[in-house]
């Protein structure tokens, strides 16, 4: 995969296949301590501690139509080639938490890429799904919750209609860019 946001899409799609109807995706970038952390938390059927090593094995899959399960091993490889840490844990209540932690400035780290596209595409094909996206950049945070968005839009308007999703994608792109832009201006003391 060329982008980390594609790995996020892949992991999140696994969550949906595991029966999740709530997803929390958090991207934390902290340049000051050189950290990029991605967390995907779901409320799906969860994972037993015994199954965790198995899903790391590319020749293990629960699916019948194929013999390999490459998603998790590829993501793990993308993390470990940068000296990062990849973890899968059962969530405390129910579901699973996948965490990938990278040195932010590592040359071999894939770019985060089109994370807004990933969120939009997850919303496009899956209902009912409550998706909470958080993006931290140093001290700043942007949060997006599809439940709040639906309330603003009105309960009678389908969130999955193309017009709404295209708008939502642009809204995400703009707000994530603003998060970083504000920091850059502050850092260099620019005022205008």
């Amino acid at each position, binding site marked *: 995969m060329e982008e980390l946001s*594609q790995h996020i899409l892949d992991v999140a799609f696994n969550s949906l296949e595991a029966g999740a109807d709530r997803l929390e995706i958090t991207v934390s970038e902290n340049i000051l301590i050189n950290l990029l952390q991605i967390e995907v938390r779901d409320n799906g059927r969860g994972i037993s501690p015994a199954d965790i090593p198995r899903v790391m094995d590319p020749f293990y899959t629960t699916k019948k139509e*194929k013999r390999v399960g490459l998603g998790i091993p590829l993501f793990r490889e993308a993390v470990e080639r940068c000296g990062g840490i990849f973890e899968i844990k059962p969530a405390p209540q129910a579901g699973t938490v996948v965490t990938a932690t990278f040195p932010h400035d590592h040359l071999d780290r894939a770019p985060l890429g089109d994370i807004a596209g990933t969120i939009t*595409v997850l919303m496009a*094909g*899956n209902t009912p799904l409550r998706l909470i996206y958080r993006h931290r950049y140093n001290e700043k945070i942007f949060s997006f919750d599809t439940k709040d968005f639906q309330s603003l839009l009105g309960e*009678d308007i389908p969130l999955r209609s193309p*017009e709404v*999703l*295209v708008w939502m994608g642009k*809204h995400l792109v703009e707000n994530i860019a603003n998060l970083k832009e504000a920091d850059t201006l502050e850092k260099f003391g620019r005022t205008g």
Partner: protein
Amino acid sequence: MKSLEELASLREKLKKDMSIREQGHEIKVTVSMGTCGIAAGAREIVKALLEELKEQGLNGISLTQTSCAGLCHYEPMLEISQGSEKTTYVKIDGNKAREIVKKHLVGGKVVEEWTAR
């Protein structure tokens, strides 16, 4: 928020559109979203489909996703089903996805050269 006014006008527009179309979701577009599909560009296909469906005012078409169908060498793939009729498009890209919306969904003609043979 991009702007609350903008969102409010979008809501009003969609309410009007919804009262015009009440044809149900008889046409379904399904994109394969397994690891192989995502790596081959399935996300860009869904984005292109959304943009073109919006352009064409086709808010009533059901867009769904499925996992790997075991035909990884054909990815990215999309299937259009209408009743018992199914068409599978293979090795598509964003531009082809837009053309498929225009020619197949709007024009009603299958684009034979992009289907599985």
